[in-house]
């Protein structure tokens, strides 16, 4: 039986299948189920600074009838954040006490002071690593590329300055020079980069003519964009990569490993299939490796990356002759 252990988050993982951050990983019981099913690591549900703000708004709205002293309303600025953090830190220590599988905390903040504050507390609570779930919506035309990019880099540096646990970063593909940016991120000293963040998306209902919430879960075809960039980036940056979005089968997971990822993060597929999908994927990866004669993941990791295969295969973006030669009804 092949050895499917790998390394990501600067940690040795028993499997390349990581349970990614999702609503499931916000509950101790489910985190433990995922760990028992054989996950290489479990990334806890992200703490979102924006979520804390939304809760604050809800509380303030409820308080209007009570004529609360505004001094007391100020107090909620602090207490809601503290309460959210306290629950999160409790989750970390609770699951850490019950499993040896690495537990990774995940945070998404707006300001760099909050990123560093949360990071310190998370380290104190005993998390094995920290994933920075970073994203600034590039929708402000007045903001320069540099200011956004510098925010990422400076925030990471500040976090790295205050914690000793490994720090990884989960990013989106919204950068004008993605490869250049990933290289800069790698140079900060992060222990890995996850491509790409999956976002809440709006959709349009044409009957009610309103903006609605799009399907939240990924489909099994969503993996192509992160796979492409794993192939391109793994050849040019010196940092561990993990792919995520649309990875529903062991076959897709193997594609990422071949493209150069050290691991993959899965979430959507666990909702319908349960934690056992991790056990199944682990077994199928091992079977495939046996069939191919690979004893370790390192033997084939990055075998098809841009560095070792055709650059054009990964970088081609136009269909050219492909559709031109296809017939239609």
């Amino acid at each position, binding site marked *: 039986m092949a050895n499917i252990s790998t390394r990501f988050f600067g940690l040795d993982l028993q499997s390349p299948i990581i349970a990614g951050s999702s609503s499931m990983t916000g509950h101790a019981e489910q985190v433990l189920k995922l760990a028992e099913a054989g996950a290489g690591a479990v990334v806890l549900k992200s703490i979102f600074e924006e979520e804390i*703000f939304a809760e*604050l*708004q*809800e*509380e*303030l*709205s409820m*308080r*209007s*009838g*009570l*004529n*609360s*002293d*505004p*001094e*007391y*309303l*100020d*107090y909620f*600025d*602090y*207490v809601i*954040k*503290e*309460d959210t*953090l306290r629950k999160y830190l409790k989750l970390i220590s609770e699951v850490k006490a019950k499993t040896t599988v690495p537990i990774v905390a995940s945070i998404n903040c*707006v*300001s*760099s*002071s*909050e990123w560093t*504050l949360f990071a*310190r*507390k998370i380290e104190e609570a005993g998390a094995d690593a920290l994933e920075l779930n970073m994203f600034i919506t590039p929708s402000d035309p007045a903001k320069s590329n540099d200011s956004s990019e510098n*925010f990422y880099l*400076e925030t990471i540096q500040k976090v790295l300055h*205050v914690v000793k646990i490994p720090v990884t970063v989960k990013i989106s593909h919204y950068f004008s020079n993605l490869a250049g940016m990933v290289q800069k991120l790698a140079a900060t000293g992060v222990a890995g980069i996850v491509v790409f963040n999956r976002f809440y998306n709006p959709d349009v209902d044409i009957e009610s003519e309103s903006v609605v919430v799009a399907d939240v879960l990924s489909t099994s075809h969503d993996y192509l964009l992160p796979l492409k960039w794993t192939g391109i980036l793994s050849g040019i940056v010196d940092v561990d990569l993990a792919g995520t979005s649309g990875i529903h089968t062991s076959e897709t997971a193997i594609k990422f490993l071949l493209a150069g990822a050290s691991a993959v993060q899965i979430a959507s597929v666990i909702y319908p299939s349960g934690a056992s999908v991790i056990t199944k994927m682990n077994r199928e990866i091992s079977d495939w490796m046996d069939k191919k004669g690979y004893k370790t993941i390192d033997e084939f990791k990055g075998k098809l990356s841009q560095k070792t295969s055709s650059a054009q295969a990964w970088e081609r973006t136009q269909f050219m002759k492909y559709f031109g030669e296809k017939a239609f009804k």
Partner: protein
Amino acid sequence: MSTNKEYLQNEREKEWRVELRKKIANKERTAKERVRMNEMDPFERIKYQNREVNLGLTAEQAQAEAARCLDCPNPTCMEGCPVSINIPKFVKYIEAGQFLDAAKALKETSALPAVCGRVCPQEKQCESTCFYTQKMKKDPVAIGYLERFAADYERESGFMSIPEVAPSNGIKIAAIGSGPASLSFAGDMIKLGYDVTVFEALHEIGGVLKYGIPEFRLPNKIVDVELNNLKKMGVKFVNNFIVGKTVSFDDLKAEGFEAFFVASGAGLPRFMGIPGENYNGILSSNEYLTRVNLMNAASDEFDTPVIRGKNVAVIGGGNTAMDSVRTAKRLGAERAMIIYRRSRAEMPARVEEVHHAEEEGIEFINLANPIEYFADEKGKVNRMRVQRMGLGEPDASGRRRPIVLEGSDFDIPVDLVIVAVGVSPNPLIPSALSDLKVSKWGTIEVGEETMQSSIPQLFAGGDIVRGGATVILAMGDGRKAAENMHEYLQSKHQ
């Protein structure tokens, strides 16, 4: 005491009021300027922790100000008063020169007029709904100053009136905590003939009025006079007594107490949870003010003096922050600073307190938020890092939301930091009663109209219900709870 429309109308139509209205034409009344409070000189007053800043009005000033009041047929000012003081009645008594009657009118519905006249945010309550403010866009009648005048006059006259008390009905009830909500509750219940005992955990009666509000704003002797009034009416006070620890509710029930009013306040200090907050020299406003106000910590002759900083930063923008920073100034701070993350416009403190603080040389560093503290080799704070904030869109409280300005961090040398970012409800009572329904923030849940909790014989009000309330709102809760507990007990005894 009833405050319904018919009663108010009858009072207004009494001969003396009608005559008084005729004496001065409304045009003449409205042409008068609002009186200015007499104040102690800022340079002089900062030398004393226990000398009051506001000196009160003279009788002439008070009568002139009272004459501005139009004695409206529909006194909208009363809508802004949580304890429904008959405002036109007491104001007109002042105009008529019958100051003792004015004080008596105040005591019909308020157990603490001298206190309210000093610490109520009148600009947000009665004065905000005064005819002058609402219809004429002019400075309102100085209701707060007049309230203080009447209460002070009565006290200094030596002719303190004691409100009438109904014959005893023999029903024992308890109030837990001795702050404004409890005192107001006790005042109403004793008038109705109940056997009222107020239990206080600290060694002094008065709750936040004593431990929280410095003497330069509310002298303890003023509070004591009001407490003595309640004692004379028959209210019993037991201090150094923690209900839920010293004895249980069951013990009190066994002693014959039939109902309880919990007003145990919000005395659990909060911190920001930022790095370095545990260094020496960083303390909560609760600790700082309680030690200075109640434990003589400002005096070096006592065993546990408080730290006297030269560069003192107070974090927060409410009245507690103002009280702390002004106390620090009086204790010798060369640089006493308010550090608040929102702008001046969003500061929750009373306008008068901010104005007084400014006069006293307090430095306001607005739109700034502490993010870390640093210490010397002995672990004593010597520097704080602050980040600049901007203002975003208004949040659900209507105030603009503070937003971090990245890269704007700067350091301020400090040797004393007082954190005044709010307090949590006192957890003692909720933890002693498993059947008591509490919110996720630890406040006791009560019916909005009745103040009755999930335990029928237990009513609650003030900060333990609201989380944070002004003195007068807490007093309003006490009155509402008294009315409903009375109804509950009467139906039980029928």
